[in-house]
Each structure stands twice: as structure tokens, then as C-alpha cells.
């Protein structure tokens, strides 16, 4: 998953105050970042590793990242970047096709009677990745549309389109699930 740690020629040192900040940042955001990753990647092991690695990357660069308006944005952007790199690598190894456990396979059946978290994850995985990310960033994690566009590196107008499409599809799926028609 993430590169093997290599011995840093320059020891990494943070003040105790910074260390405490990092740990608090990690604890406060881990669940959200992991949830975000799991909505993008069907293999939860990969998703959890990506979440941890993205947070770790922020910690490594904490003196700079802490100055950001919202450090979580950098973490999520890093996570998406790592996922893209991973998908490219796996695609090359798999002869041009993304392996099923990572691919955007929207054909999973809805698990009935499971808790909310699993249900939402399943629904999000049925959206296009950018639709899911747009909805999660704006409606779940509290980013503005402009901020969400910046995290996703897309135009504002594009972000609005994805968010709208994602929400419409979620509405349709919720309705179908209530009627027992969601496959």
C-alpha cells in the first residue's frame, strides 16, 4: 500500500505541543477520512490504509498543513491522489483493467437491515466517484462548494453538477430501497 518507511536522514521532530495537536487532529478526523475512503474504494482494507496514510502524511508536514484554512482538505486531496496512483498502478499490472475489488463496481446488492453506516457506504459506492465525493464533501463534511471544487481539482460549475447529480441519484435509490426495488 503505502511505501515502506525509509530511514529519514533528518530526524523528524515536533514539539510536544505539535505532537499533541497531531494526535488530536488524527483522532478527530480519522473516522470521517476512513468513511470517505470506504465510499470510494470497495476494498475496505485498502480504504483504511489510504485513510491512515493520508493522515500520516499530514502529520509529517504538520508545521505547514496546520496553517491551512482546513487541514482536512489537504488530507482528503492527498487521499484521492494516492488512490489515483494506486488505481493506475493496479491497472497497468492487470493488463489495462482495474481489478474488481478496487473498481467502481456499482452492481453490489443492497444489504438489507444493516446499520446506517454500511447503508450509506453502499449507496455512495453506487454513485460515480466524483458524485460521491461532491456530496460527501459538501453535505457530510461541511465544505463549501468552492472549497469542495478545490479539493477535487475541478471547476466550481463541474462540482455543482456532480453534487446535484449525486443527490438526485441518492434520492432515487432511497425511494427504491423503501419500495424494496433496489438491487
Amino acid at each position, binding site marked *: 500500500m*503505502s*511505501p515502506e*518507511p*525509509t*530511514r*529519514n536522514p*533528518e*530526524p*523528524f521532530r*515536533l514539539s510536544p505541543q505539535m*505532537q499533541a495537536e*497531531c*494526535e488530536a487532529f*488524527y*483522532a478527530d478526523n*480519522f*473516522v470521517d477520512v476512513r*468513511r470517505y475512503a470506504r465510499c470510494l474504494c470497495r476494498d475496505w482494507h485498502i480504504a483504511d490504509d489510504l485513510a491512515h496514510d493520508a493522515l*500520516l*502524511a499530514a*502529520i*509529517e*508536514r504538520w508545521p*505547514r498543513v496546520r*496553517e*491551512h*484554512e482546513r487541514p482536512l*482538505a*489537504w488530507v482528503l*486531496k*492527498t487521499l484521492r*491522489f494516492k488512490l*489515483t*496512483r494506486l488505481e493506475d498502478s493496479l*491497472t*497497468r499490472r492487470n493488463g*489495462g*483493467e482495474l481489478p474488481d475489488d478496487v473498481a467502481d463496481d456499482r452492481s453490489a446488492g443492497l444489504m438489507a437491515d444493516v446499520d*446506517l*453506516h454500511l447503508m*450509506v457506504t453502499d*449507496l455512495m459506492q453506487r454513485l460515480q466517484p466524483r458524485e460521491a465525493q461532491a456530496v460527501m464533501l459538501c*453535505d*457530510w463534511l461541511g465544505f463549501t462548494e468552492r*472549497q469542495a*471544487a*478545490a*479539493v477535487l*481539482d*475541478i*471547476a*466550481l*460549475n*463541474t462540482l455543482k*453538477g456532480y453534487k446535484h447529480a449525486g*443527490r438526485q441519484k*441518492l*434520492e432515487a435509490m*432511497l425511494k427504491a430501497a*423503501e419500495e424494496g426495488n433496489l438491487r
Partner: protein
Amino acid sequence: MNVDELLRRTAAIPVTRFDEAVIRRNLSRVRTLMWTDQGSSSAAEDELGLDDPLRPDEDEADRIARAGQLIGMGTFTWSPAAGKLAWSRKMSEILGYHQGFAHPSRAALLDRIHAADREAFWLAVEETFESCNLQDIVLRVLRPQSATRYVRFYMQVLTDEGGTPRGVIATAQDVSDKVFAEKEAERLKQRCETILTRLEEHDPVTTLLNWRGFDNEVDRARRIGPGAVLLLRIEALGGRPGQDGPVSWEDFMRVIADFLRRLKQVGDEVACLGENEFAFLLCGTEAEAKARSVIADLENRNFLAGGHRIQVSVHGGLVAFDGSRRARAGREESVGSLLIDADVALYEARRSGSPLGMVDPAVQAAPGGRQESWRARVRSALEEGRMTLFAQPLRSLHDGQVTRYELLLRLVDGEDLVTPAKFVAMAESLGMVDRVDLWVIKEAVKLLAHLEAGIRLQVNLSARSLGDPALLAAIEKLLEPPSVDASRLTFEITETAMIGNTADTRHFVDRLRALGCQFALDDFGSGYGSLINLKSLPFDILKIDGEFVHDSMDNKTSRAMIEAIVHMCKGLGILSQAEFVEDKQLLTWLADLGVDFAQGYAVGRPRPVEELLVPERPGAGSGEGEGDPPEEFHQSA
């Protein structure tokens, strides 16, 4: 629950104790890794940069371009108001320009888009701007030296503070590897679907081996070790399926075939050689015991066919081989000889009323043994008039008229009609097939003299006849004036018959075409011929093998083959005929495709030729399913 409520509730999901445990564990790892002298470093994030993604002063276009560059994408931006188009260094590379190309422009960009894709490309750009909807399109880029690459363009609209469109930005990525991989996967998938897993050696009704397939299996088995050939004649008690009683011939044959498959042991093979005739290849020794067991199992069983119970009577003819391909008499045995021996044994069993007849191959192989008995059968069939002809209509798919008939040979053997495949094969092996062919041609000429002028007849010629000068001379004499118009006579030759015989075939065909006769290439597609034959031999008609036709409604391989063959015929000026046309839907499809003639049960079943001479009732002769004659069994001679 609506989306807002769903997301609100999700956001409010509390951190569970399990989550807290995971966080504690991870933080422990962080402390170990980060807060000690060990550090970790990954270069990836350094590429990403440490700038705050939410900084408000960054231009949207710059941000997107930078992000694209980070993951190896090129970008171009278009500002219609300023009339300007700019692109990144990576974009230069993707387009095949050297990096730092100084004059990006719409013209330079379009110049590198494949001519066939240019219009779609610029339409997508304009559509993105006008509709504010993103466009995701894969197009071809033509680089210098005609290298074609597939590039994915992801186009977004750029807006000002007020939301008014001000331009388009597109990221571009070379996805050629992915596209080529997808095309290859699709091609392999299509090829796997279209490769026949079974060679054309199976009977279409029972799906058992046919004559050709069984021949090959026996030949193979004889090289391995001892074994035996068991020919079986299986007849339903209480009436002939398809003629007397409610059970159809096909149902009967299938249910027998299924049972024989179950009786088959490892290493054995089962074949269907004709109407009511089956064959077993028994490997190893103990053939007689096996053969008797098979016959007893068949006779003791109540079969269920078409919802009706049937019992059968069985006779068998058994001949053993020793695996050395040589008889004890020292002469090499052919597979055909073995089959003749088995048939003789079967004939004797039926004549004597015993269930199983056996033949000593050594005795049969001795001079005058086998050959003499069969020669006598063929001779007597000729002299005693026990060969008869049936006629099966061919309908023109252009005007719906029946103007052609194929003549089909039958040997009357007791109460049975023997199919031509076996009879002709044996006659060929005895060197008597020329006499059989000549008899058929004579009958055809006599028949033509009594039929309407517009009716043509098609007769089959065997391989040996093609090289027979005496037969050729005899046919020419038959067609001398004031005989019938030679153009009303068509000779059918199979692809296989021409192997090693092209020169003789050419001579034969040329001489008879000079008189006006036509020639048809029979069973096209299933033999061992080559397309070069169509260039070098002047065939007028090509008969598409029934193996492609009969399942073409369900088999896309067969459909593709037929379409290709018809197209080829049109290009070569050859008429096409489709065999085994058994239903109206198929007839319609073939007509729409442009096939010239159709033959099969949907057009008409074989009838005794005498019926052609009877004045027709309205609608008779070309209808479906008219039923007196025995079922035609389409096997190559």
C-alpha cells in the same frame, strides 16, 4: 428518509468504541514511527505540494491545470471572448508537438486531432461552454509519423464570480494502452464465442458423431489398440416414428441417442450413421460381451419419446480389429472395409433373426470375401431396379417459385430405404460408384424429358466420377441432341471430392459446361476445400452447408459465416443455395440476406420422383411438411 436526513444522520454517527480502539492503535504506531528517531518519508506527497487547497486567491484554471500536471495530464484552456487557446507542456507532448511549442492555437490543436474525430471534438468544446455541462470524450490524436493515440479529454466550463461562463478547460490523458487492452479483450471474447468447439463431425439431430466423425474415431482407435465396431439397427416396435403413430422421428432418434450415450464407456464412441442406424466404437477386448449387453439393454428398455412409450428391436453387426491395421491375411485394412464388414454382419443378423452377427475380418479380407458380397449387392441393386430416386424442391427466394429439384438416391433393401451416405461410400470403395452415378444421370435425363421446360434437376457426383473419362463420355452422349437442354442439368460436387483432383475436376467441368450444364459446389464451408477453388473452377452455384444454416437463428457464428458467403457469391456472380432450411423465420431471413435458393423442410420434403410427373394440385409440391417420403438424412456422400 430523504437525502438530507440520511446525510445528517450519517454525519452524526458517533465514534464507536471499536473506532476509538483503532484510533488508539494507529496513534501508537504514529508515536513509534514519528516521534522517535525513525521517520518515514514518502515522496508522493511532496509532488502534491503543501499549499492549502482552499486558498481563495488561486485561479480556478491554474489550480486544475496544476492538479492535472501532477498526475501526468495535459491541459488546454479556451477563452472564446479573447479568442485565445493555450495549453500545457504536457499537452504539447500528448499532441506530438515538441515541448514548449510556442504557438498553441485552435488550428494547431485541431490539426493533431484525427480528421474523423475533429468535428466531434470541437462540438464537445462548444457544448461544454454553452451548456455548462462537462464532456468526457475519447478521441484519436494523430502524431507525426502517423502514430495514432487515444486521448481522453475531460472538459469543464470555467465561470467568473457571478457564475457566467468565461471559458473551457480540458485535461487530456493518453489512454491508448487502456483502449487497446479493451479492444483486444473484446476481440478475444468475440473470437471465443465464434470458435466452434465441435468439429463438423456431428449429426445435427442427435449430436452424436456422424459418418465422418465416426470414421475418424475408428481410424484413430485402430492405431492405439484392439477394439471393435458395432453397427446397430434400432427400430421402434409398433410403428415407424414420423410416419405411423404420434412419435416424431427426431424425438425417437434423440431418445435413443441419449440412452446410447449413457451406455458408452470410457474410451468408446457412439455415432448416428443414418435413419435408425447407430454405431459403437468399442475399445479393448471383450467386444462381443459388450455388444450383447448393449443390445440387451436397448431391447429391455421402455423409452419415453414425445410423451409416448416405445420399445425397440435391435440387430447388431460386430467386427473386431486388432490394432495393427493389418488383417491376419496381411493386407492393410481400411476403415471403410471394417464398416462394410460390420454392415455385412448386421445384414446377416437381420436375415437370420439373431440379435448379433459377427464377422471374421480375416475371412472378409480374403480375396472375394467382403468385396464380393457387396459387389453383388450393388450389382443386384442396379440390375433389379432397387435403386430409386427422390426429389427435394429448391425454392427461388426472389420469386418464390420452385424451379429446381435435387435428386437423392435411395437403395431399397428389403422394406427399408438405405441412405446414400453409406451406400455410396461403399460403392466408392468398391470402384462401382461410376455405375451408380451414371444410372442417376440417365434417370435425371429421362425425367427432364417429361418435366416442364423450366424445371431443372441437380444430381450429386462422387469424387471418383470426376476423374472417369468413360463416365464423362457417357454423359456427353446422353446429352447429345435431340436430348434435353443440358442447361437444365446441374451437377453437385463437394469440396472434399475435389481434393487432389483439381485438374480432373476442371477438365470434367469444362467439357460439360461447354454443353450448357451447370455446376454446384456442395456442402460449402464444411469440407476441406479452399477459396481458390472458387476462382479456378467455374461453379455456377454454391450450396451453403446445412451445418451453418440450421442453427443460424441462434448462432451468431453461423450467421456471420452465411452473410460472408452470400456477400462473396454476389461478388463472384455465383448463385447461393441454403440447405437445411427448416422454418419460415429462417426462410425470411435468408431471403432478406439475398440468398438465391432455399432447400429444406420449410420448402418441401423429398418425394419419389414419380410424383413430379403427376399434375400438381394448387399449392402442392412446394409446401411445408408434406409427408410421405422417408426423412431425408443429409449426409455427405
